[in-house]
Each structure stands twice: as structure tokens, then as C-alpha cells.
């Protein structure tokens, strides 16, 4: 990729395009974000990507705001805003028109079929997100154990996820991980 290009423009088209391909939501787009931000554009290291993911999960708001953090690391406040709008804007306009179209021609079978078809895809993408993030975040056996225990607790109980994140932070601070 041309590194001389205006970073704001690169952010805009990178996330604008991703917006339209992000089937299954923001967490399903993480492999693509990782590939572009770490491997293709070299905006951040593996470790920074894991940090940014952690911050986006700790902060309130939709998960998509990981792009705000990536944008900030590339081009400051302007980068943060451009990345966020690029990731949310095109798909929001698309959603607006599709929903109006579907309200007029209701009872079509196609939305249900397409939706059913895309569910396994988006789960597969989220699984890939989990794998890629686990490989970047879990650098020690203790870290992998924390991930496994958090996954098991979140799967089996209705514990507020924030407690698990805080517990992870405490273990990290204590130097266990």
C-alpha cells in the first residue's frame, strides 16, 4: 500500500469499504481489521491491536468503536472521527433504504432465507475473531487459562461481563498473566 497517501483518506476508504462487507457486525469484522491494520497498513503492532480490543470492550457503547481507537492511533482525533463515520455511515444509509424497500414489499421470503444463510457465516467470522485475538492476547499459559475460564463463566452463567473484564485486569495488574 502507498504509505505516502493521506492517512485520513486511507482510513476513510478502508473502513468505508469494510462497512459494507461486515456481515455479522463489528466483532465478525475483527479478522479483517487485524489483517488491514497490522499486516497490510502497519498502523499498529499485534500487541497494540489486542490492547485496543480490550479498551473497546471495557468502554461503553457499541463494539464497533474499536475503529475509533484504530483511527485515533493513525491520525489523532480527526482519524478517530473519520474511521467511525466511515465504518457506520455507508451501512447506515444502506440499512435506511433497504428497510424502506422491505416495508413496502412485505412478506417476501427472501429476507428470511438470506438471514438464515448468513447466520453460519457470521458465527464462523466471529470464531475467526476469537482465534486471532486469542493468538495476539494470550502470550502465556496463564493468559490462555484466563481466556478459557472467562469463556466458560460467560457461557454458563449470567454474570455481568464487566466483572470478568475487571477480574482479568486485576490478575494482569498482579502480574499473574
Amino acid at each position, binding site marked *: 500500500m502507498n504509505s505516502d497517501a493521506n492517512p485520513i483518506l486511507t482510513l476513510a476508504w478502508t473502513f468505508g469499504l469494510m462497512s459494507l462487507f461486515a456481515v455479522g457486525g463489528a466483532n465478525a469484522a475483527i479478522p479483517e481489521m487485524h489483517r488491514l491494520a497490522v499486516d497490510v497498513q502497519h498502523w499498529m503492532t499485534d500487541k497494540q491491536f489486542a490492547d485496543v480490543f480490550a479498551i473497546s470492550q471495557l468502554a461503553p457503547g457499541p463494539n464497533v468503536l474499536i475503529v475509533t481507537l484504530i483511527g485515533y492511533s493513525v491520525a489523532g482525533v480527526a482519524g478517530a472521527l473519520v474511521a467511525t463515520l466511515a465504518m457506520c455511515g455507508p451501512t447506515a444509509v444502506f440499512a435506511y433504504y433497504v428497510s424502506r424497500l422491505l416495508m413496502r414489499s412485505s412478506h417476501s421470503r427472501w429476507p428470511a432465507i438470506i*438471514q438464515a444463510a448468513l447466520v*453460519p457465516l457470521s458465527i464462523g467470522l*466471529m470464531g475467526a475473531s476469537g482465534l486471532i485475538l486469542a493468538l495476539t492476547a494470550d502470550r502465556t499459559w496463564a493468559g*490462555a487459562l484466563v481466556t478459557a475460564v472467562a469463556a466458560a463463566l460467560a457461557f454458563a452463567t449470567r454474570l455481568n461481563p464487566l466483572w470478568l473484564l475487571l477480574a482479568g*485486569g486485576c490478575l494482569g495488574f498482579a502480574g499473574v498473566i
Partner: protein
Amino acid sequence: MPPDSPPVAVPAPDIPELATSTPPGLIALFVAFAKMSLAGFGGVLVWARRGIVDQHRWMTADEFNETFALCHFLPGPNIVNLSVVFGSRFRGIPGGLAAFAGLVGPPVVIVTVLAALYARYGEIDALRRILAGVSCAAVGLLISAVFRMMMSLIKRRDLIGLVILAAVFIAVGLLRLPLPAVLLVASPVSIAIAFVVRRGAA
């Protein structure tokens, strides 16, 4: 609100049976979505359902599920799509913008401040250790969400779905192929299979 304002502007009391008895105004949309968004640690959907269906009764549970299903099958962040579709249904394009601004605006300010703090203090050893711990747990949460969603496929014995899931996982997670390429192949294949299966079942 000034005391001489017309009575129309006064919010009517909630009527529980009718979901859309009081269509929200622009400010109400902004505030409601800002509240859901700021309450939503690790995902806003639960709070959106609580706010829209239970608290404000702007939609019935079925209407909400239908709207969310639509937003889920569209690309992009689901909850962002939901805010635009929901807001515009009541108040047109300004409504969509108000809901979107409420959902994204306040948290973007918070996240930008966090990003600035990270850029400045991210190298401090204690913070690095804390973030390392948080990210390990956060990955665990994501993995549990994947297994939860997978369970519904397993319960339905949806073998084809599981094969497609595994193929996408291998292509993107292990082979690290670009997302657009994978989707351009996997989506038509998956939709074609779903169509054939439906027709076989009908």
C-alpha cells in the same frame, strides 16, 4: 419546557398495550439511544431491547425482533443499523440521524479520550499489565458468544450450517484470506443452499 407550550408537546402517559402509542420525538430518540449506548458494556443489544420494548414501549417484542433480524442480515454494525432504521421509522431521516447520533456520539467522545490516554500512557508497565489481563478476559467473552450462537445450530442439527461455519472459520481464521473474497464466495453458496433446503422442506 415553557408553561405556555401547546399540549401536544407534553408526552402522553404510556399505554402498555399499544406499542407505538407515543411516537418518540427527535430529542427523545437521541436521549434514549444515548442512555442505551452508555449502559451497554460489551454490547448494546440487550439494553436496546430493554429500552425500546420494556421501558418506552415504542415497539412490541415481535416488532423489535423483526427489525433486529433485518439489521442483522444487513452488513455493518447491527446496532448502528438498528438505530437508523428505528429512528427513521418514527421521524424520517432526522429521526434516524438523531438515534444514530445518540448511539454513537457520547461513547465516541469517551473512547476518544481513552485513546488519547492510551497513546500517552500506554507504555506504562502497570497499564500494560492491566490491559493484557483485560484483553485475555475479553477474548474469552467473545469466544463464549460464539459458542452460544453455535449451540442453536447444534440443537437444530444444522449440519450444513456447521460446515459453512467451519469453512469460513478456516478461510478467515487460519488461512487469513481477505474478508471480501471469502464473502463473495461463501454468501452466494450459503444462500443457494438455504434456498434449496427451504424448497425441499416446503
